C-alpha cells in the first residue's frame, strides 16, 4: 500500500471532523470549563469560583421557575402532540388525493420559519383584534388573554408548538403504520376482534419503535424551545414563559454573566445528554433489527 492510499481516508474525513471538533465537541468542554468561573466577557481575568455558579443556580427562585416552566412546557407539548398525531395518523392513513392534500396541509407548518409561525400566532392571539377571540365569541365563549396573562401564556405557546409539530409527527406515524404487515390485521379480522382491541394488540406494539423515537426526539427539541419565546413573549408576562435556553441567552448576552449562563448550559447538557443516550440505545437496537 502506498503512503497516499493509507492517508487518503484521513484526508477525506478531515474537513468534517475538524468542523465538528471546533464548533461542536470542543465548545461543550469549553462551556463546562467556563461554568466554574465568574466572568463578564470584558474583564481579561476569569475568577475561579468552583461550584458556586451551580449552587447559585439552584438557590435562585427565578431559575427554579424557569426549570419548572421548561418541564411543564415540554411534557404538555410532547404528550398532546404525540396523542393527537397518533390519532390523526390512524385516521388519515388512507389512499386518495384528499388525504394527500390534508396531510400536506398538516405538514406545511413544519417547513415554515418559526419566525413566521410566531408572528402569525401572535396576531391570531391578539386579545383585542385577534381572530381566535372572534371565533370564541362566535361560539358564545368568553374572550381569552392568551399571551398577555401569566395564566394562559405558557399554554398558548404549547398550542403553537402542537400546531407546528403534529403534521410532522403524524407523517412519521403514517410511515410506521404502513410498515406493519397487512396480514396481521387480516388475522385479527378473522378473530372478529374489535377496533380498540386491534389497536392495543397489534397497532400499538408494532408502532412502539416509532412511538419511542418520536417521544424522545420531541422531548429533546421541546426542551430547547427558544424562538417562539424570544419572538412572542420574551419570557413574560412575569416570567411565566421563561425557559432554559432563553434564560441562558439572557444571562449570557444581556447580563454578561458568562460563568452563570454556562452553568445553566451544563444543566441543559445533562438533560439532552441523558435523552440522547436513551435515543442511541434505541437506535442501536433498531439497526440490529434490520
Amino acid at each position, binding site marked *: 500500500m502506498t503512503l497516499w492510499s493509507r492517508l*487518503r*481516508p484521513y484526508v*477525506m*474525513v478531515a*474537513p*468534517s*471532523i475538524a*468542523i*465538528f*471538533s471546533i*464548533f*461542536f*465537541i470542543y*465548545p*461543550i468542554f*469549553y*462551556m463546562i470549563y*467556563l461554568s466554574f468561573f465568574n466572568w463578564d466577557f470584558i474583564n481579561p481575568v476569569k475568577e475561579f469560583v468552583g461550584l458556586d455558579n451551580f449552587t447559585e443556580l439552584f438557590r435562585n427562585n427565578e431559575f427554579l421557575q424557569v426549570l419548572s416552566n421548561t418541564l411543564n412546557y415540554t411534557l404538555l407539548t410532547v404528550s398532546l402532540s404525540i396523542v393527537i398525531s397518533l390519532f390523526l395518523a390512524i385516521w388519515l392513513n388512507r389512499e386518495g388525493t384528499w388525504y394527500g*392534500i*390534508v396531510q*400536506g*396541509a*398538516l*405538514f*406545511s407548518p413544519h*417547513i415554515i*420559519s*418559526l*419566525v*413566521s409561525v410566531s*408572528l*402569525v400566532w401572535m*396576531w*391570531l392571539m391578539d386579545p*383585542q*383584534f385577534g*381572530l381566535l377571540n*372572534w371565533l370564541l*365569541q362566535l361560539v358564545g365563549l368568553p374572550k381569552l388573554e392568551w399571551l398577555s396573562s401569566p395564566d394562559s401564556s405558557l399554554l398558548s405557546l404549547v398550542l403553537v408548538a402542537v*400546531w407546528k409539530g403534529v403534521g*410532522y409527527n403524524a*407523517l*412519521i406515524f403514517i410511515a*410506521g403504520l404502513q410498515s406493519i404487515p397487512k396480514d396481521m390485521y387480516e388475522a385479527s379480522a378473522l378473530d372478529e376482534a374489535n377496533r380498540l382491541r386491534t389497536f392495543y394488540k397489534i397497532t400499538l406494539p408494532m408502532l412502539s419503535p*416509532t412511538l419511542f*423515537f*418520536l417521544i424522545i*426526539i420531541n422531548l429533546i427539541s421541546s426542551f*430547547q424551545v*427558544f424562538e417562539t419565546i*424570544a*419572538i412572542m413573549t420574551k419570557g413574560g408576562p412575569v416570567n411565566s414563559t421563561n425557559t432554559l435556553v432563553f434564560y441562558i*441567552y439572557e444571562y*449570557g448576552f444581556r447580563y454578561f454573566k*458568562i460563568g452563570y449562563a*454556562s452553568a445553566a*448550559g451544563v444543566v*441543559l447538557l445533562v438533560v*439532552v445528554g441523558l435523552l440522547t443516550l436513551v*435515543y442511541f440505545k434505541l437506535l442501536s437496537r433498531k439497526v440490529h433489527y434490520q
Partner: protein
Amino acid sequence: MPIEQRPLLKVLHYLGMVLLMAAFVIPFLWMISTSLKSYAETVIFPPKWIPSKIMWSNFTAAWESGPFLKYFMNSVVVSISILLLQFTTIILAAYAFARYRFKGGNLLFGITMVTLMIPGQLIFLPVYLLMSKWGLLNTLFALILPFSSSAFGIFMLRQSFKQVQEELIEAARLDEAPEWKIILKIMVPMARPTLVTFALFSFIAHWNDYFWPLVMTTTDAARTLPIGISKLREVDGGAAWHILMAGNMILVIPILIVFSLAQRHIIKAFVYSGVK
C-alpha cells in the same frame, strides 16, 4: 375500513377533515388577508376577511422599513454557501466511512454521531466566545462555518454509498479508474435521491433559521431575512400588523412555492430523516 357503509360516520369523517384543513389553512389565509389591509381595517372587531381596498403598498412599506435587500442577499448567500460546502465535505467523508477500513475510523465516525445530537441551542454561548475571539462576529463566516459539514448528511449518505453494488466499484478499479472518478461517476449518481433529499432539508433549515443569526449578529451587515422580519415588530410601536404580515409573506411565500412544487419530495425528505 367500512366508513362508506355508515352514513353518520361518513358525515363525521368528512366534517372532521374539513375542520382539520381549516385549522391549518386559516392561519395562512388570515396572514394573507391582513397583509392586504389598511391599518384601520386591522383594528376593527369583529374582523373583516376581505379588505375594502387592497393595500399592495404594505409590501413596499415592509421592504423599505429596513435594509431588506441586504437581509435577502445574506439569506441567499448563507443558505447556498452552506449547501455547497456541505456537499463537498459530506461526500468525501461519507465515501471514506462507507468504503475504507482505517485505524480510528470507528472513533471518527463516533465523533460524527455525537455531533448529530448536539443542537446549536446547547453550544451557542461558547461558540459565540470563539467567534468573538477570532473577530468573526457580524460576518457571514459566523453563520456559515459551523454548518459547513453535516453529521446528518454524512450519516445518510454513508448508508446510500454502502448500498452501491460492490461489482460496480470493482469493475471501475480494474479499469484503473482513480478514486475521485469512482466518487463522481458512480457513487454520486447512485446516491442522487439522497443528495436531493439532503439538499432540500438543509436549504429549508438554514433559510428559516432564526436562532443562530440572532446570536451571532448585532448589526445589519450579516443579518438574514428571518431576523429582519422579526424586527418589523419594532416598526411604528409594534402594532402595525398589516406591515408585519406583509413582511411575513415575503419570508413564507418562497418556501410555500417550493413546497407546493416539490411537496412529495420534501415530505419524503423530512420523514426519511425522522425514520432512519
